[in-house]
């Protein structure tokens, strides 16, 4: 009679056996794949993210944005007269300095002036390259925008580049309220609106130099 021998029980502990490696996709649930970064898409109400956010991110930001009614616009410094007529151009009243700047200009001004507190004029000794790196803008764009800032009286040069000491060109950047006050004093109350760079204009849409 052919008798099968009894199977010998495995006395090794299960924990001592070699484990198969984990496929990392096993752990890559939605939260991990998206990097748990849903808060990235909730932007401050005062910010315009189109200056730096990718098109896909912009869609997501728009989707998650709170209702416009909950956003209280900042009160204007002075009451503005209603525009009389518009000649071929769209215009908008100049309420904040951001109205007179492109999106890139807003970021550059932020990088040059620093924290948003209104603390009077501040010196800025950053070079084009540093500003370009900080703002993720092109160096030529930074140069053009600084020239535009100068033309609009937002900053002035207080020190030039010294190759001996390697000190960079220094600008004195005015605070947002000081710039707005200066523009108001010069009678500038409107800017052109649209896709082009905003320019100072009259209530009728005619160009108005500073």
């Amino acid at each position, binding site marked *: 009679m052919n008798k099968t021998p009894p199977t010998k029980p495995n006395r090794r502990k299960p*924990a*001592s*056996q*070699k*484990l*198969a*490696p*984990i*496929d*990392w996709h096993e*752990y*890559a649930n939605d*939260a*991990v*794949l*998206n*990097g*748990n*970064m849903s*808060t*990235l*898409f909730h932007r*401050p109400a*005062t*910010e315009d993210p189109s200056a*730096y*956010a*990718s*098109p*896909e*991110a912009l869609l997501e930001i728009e989707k998650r944005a709170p209702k416009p009614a909950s956003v209280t616009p900042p009160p204007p410094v002075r009451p503005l007269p209603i525009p009389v007529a518009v000649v071929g151009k769209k215009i908008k009243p100049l309420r904040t300095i951001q109205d007179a700047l492109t999106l890139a200009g807003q*970021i550059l001004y*932020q*990088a040059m002036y*620093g*924290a*948003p*507190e209104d603390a009077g004029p501040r010196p800025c000794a950053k070079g084009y390259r*540093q500003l370009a*790196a*900080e703002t*993720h*803008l092109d160096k030529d764009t930074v140069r053009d925008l600084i020239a535009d800032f100068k033309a609009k009286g937002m900053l002035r040069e207080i020190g030039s580049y010294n190759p001996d000491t390697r000190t960079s060109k220094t600008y004195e950047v005015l605070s947002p309220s000081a710039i707005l006050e200066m523009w108001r004093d010069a009678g500038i109350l409107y800017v052109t609106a649209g896709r082009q760079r905003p320019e100072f204009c009259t209530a009728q849409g005619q160009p108005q130099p500073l």
Partner: protein
Amino acid sequence: MEKEVTQLIRLVISNQRGGVAKTTTAVILARSFASKGKRVLLIDTDSQGSIRTILGLKPEFHLADFLIRNMAFRECVVQACPNVDVICSNRDTTEAEVTLSNSPFRELTFERLFSEHEEAYDVILIDVAPSITLSQQCAMVYAQQVLVPVGMETLSLQGAVAAVNAAAALNRFFKKGLNVRTIGLLPVMVDRRLALTAMVLDSLKQLSADTGVPVLPVIRTDSAVPKAARVRQFLADFDPNSKALADYNEVATLLLTSLDSEHEQNTANQAKSA
């Protein structure tokens, strides 16, 4: 004589899992870089303030004071040893994050504030909390290079995957000019006697092959590391012959070499394209 221009290395130590030796790695690497003659700034953005505890520092001002209370940089920095400056964190870091969360361009906060002071340093190491917070996003946007320590257990691996993907998510969010990349997966607390260690190392190799992130030389487990923290000393001062220190020194050398050569290559490419 032309002055030698050295590259500034900015590095975030990140893993979305707690207890994987992020802070320990940051502290020991800072000391290793300093021993190689680099001037190091170590920034703690974790509101637990572990670096302060590990090194026994007693700063008067913390990271939050620099970020939101306009305290001068020099006031917030303490010297932990020659060539290593530290900005410590405390509970107020959470408050700073709440304040910053409503400010425009909040992810650029570190870039805006620290770039003014980085000339005094060769290496800036940022230790972050084990969750994706605003300060971590700021740190990643500023440093753009992430080192991910991975402990030898499964959830640590999940944290590493999350850290790698966080960098990718930031790159997707920003339009251009941002290239946050994970420069390495660093296996830490490696005890090869354990079956789990072999499994995690194999999994890391697979992750590395799929994502292109290299696996760095392993850091062996060493009882000298917690003992050094207990006596509030750097590991290099407590036990210069410890095996963990030897491993960390090897990693520090490798990072310096690879990042320097990468920088030179980038500079050459830029010159060529110009």
